[in-house]
């Protein structure tokens, strides 16, 4: 079951527009705040997240999730001794 692009946009355009606006306002809010946002690693993650949205390939949601995830180490059981 695949829908038309037009149907998806009919349902999602205003939703996406509102979300982009929220992000823009949050970035403006950060600019007005005292201190340097760039010094906080969370700001860097947000910027990287926004860059990921520009990618053309499917799987953006998964890649955004992985960006905000702690890395997995296959050797964890050796470290835990289990």
């Amino acid at each position: 079951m695949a829908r038309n692009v037009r149907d998806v946009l009919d349902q999602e355009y205003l939703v996406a527009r509102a979300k982009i606006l929220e992000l823009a306002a949050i970035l403006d809010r950060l600019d007005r705040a005292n201190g340097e946002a760039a010094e906080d690693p969370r700001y860097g993650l947000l910027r990287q997240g926004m860059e990921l949205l520009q990618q053309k390939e499917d799987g953006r949601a998964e890649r955004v999730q992985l960006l905000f995830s702690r890395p997995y180490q296959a050797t964890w059981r050796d470290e835990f001794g289990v």
Partner: protein
Amino acid sequence: MQYFDPHIHMVSRTTDDYETLARMGCVGMSEPAFWAGFDRGSVESFRDYFRQLTDFEPKRAKQFGIQHFTWLCINAKEAENVELSREVIAMIPEFIDKPNVIGIGEIGLNKNTRNEVTIFKEHVDLAVQYDLPILIHTPHLEDKYQGTRMILDVLCSDSRVKRDMVLVDHVEEHTIGLVLEAGFWAGMTMYPVSKCTPERAADMIEKYGTERLMANSAGDWGPSKPTAVPDLIMVMRKRGHSEATIRKIVYDNPLTFFAKSRNFKFTPRE
């Protein structure tokens, strides 16, 4: 549409919520044991909690024509206290034959620590010993990916574990594929803020299909919406999914999975 919520913490909800869920088509639910919002001090506190889950909640649900099932464990957050956890695990068999107990859960990891892993494995031992299904809690936010992989490492290296008797909950875009490809059941937990939404759950259904997949509301004491499953039904309808596809996710799949428990006796509506 009739639906089954496979993961909802009704001890945190009012009787009005039971009525609302019944009006929306909820005919059955399963309630895993979880964290109360504070660390409990003794095994007696868990004994009372298990009485609530196996005696009081099924009666409260029945008033509204809802069949209530439950899972027992000490959750991952309190598993940091290994001594208390072992006392609780030793006490669980007292309740295992209660008519609404279907398995061990929600067990798993929270901050992915060594103590959590130790107690997780001891719960798996208990489930294997009594041949019961397992319901898995995966961590939230930045700990989810690492924790889910660690949980799958433990389960996949244990040849006693029957994968089709394990439901891994709170899957999101970066963990659902790992869980389904390994042969487990997967549950998507929909929250109003910060985690998976009904819209994204519908996306995952479109991407991964309907096999071994279900959806739940958590409905706990934090920000959560007990009617999240009806919300998903609405989203799927709006996108043009067939009633049969929707029913498979919200009714058929939960019933097929829960039927793996010898205690699951569900009476469908006429």
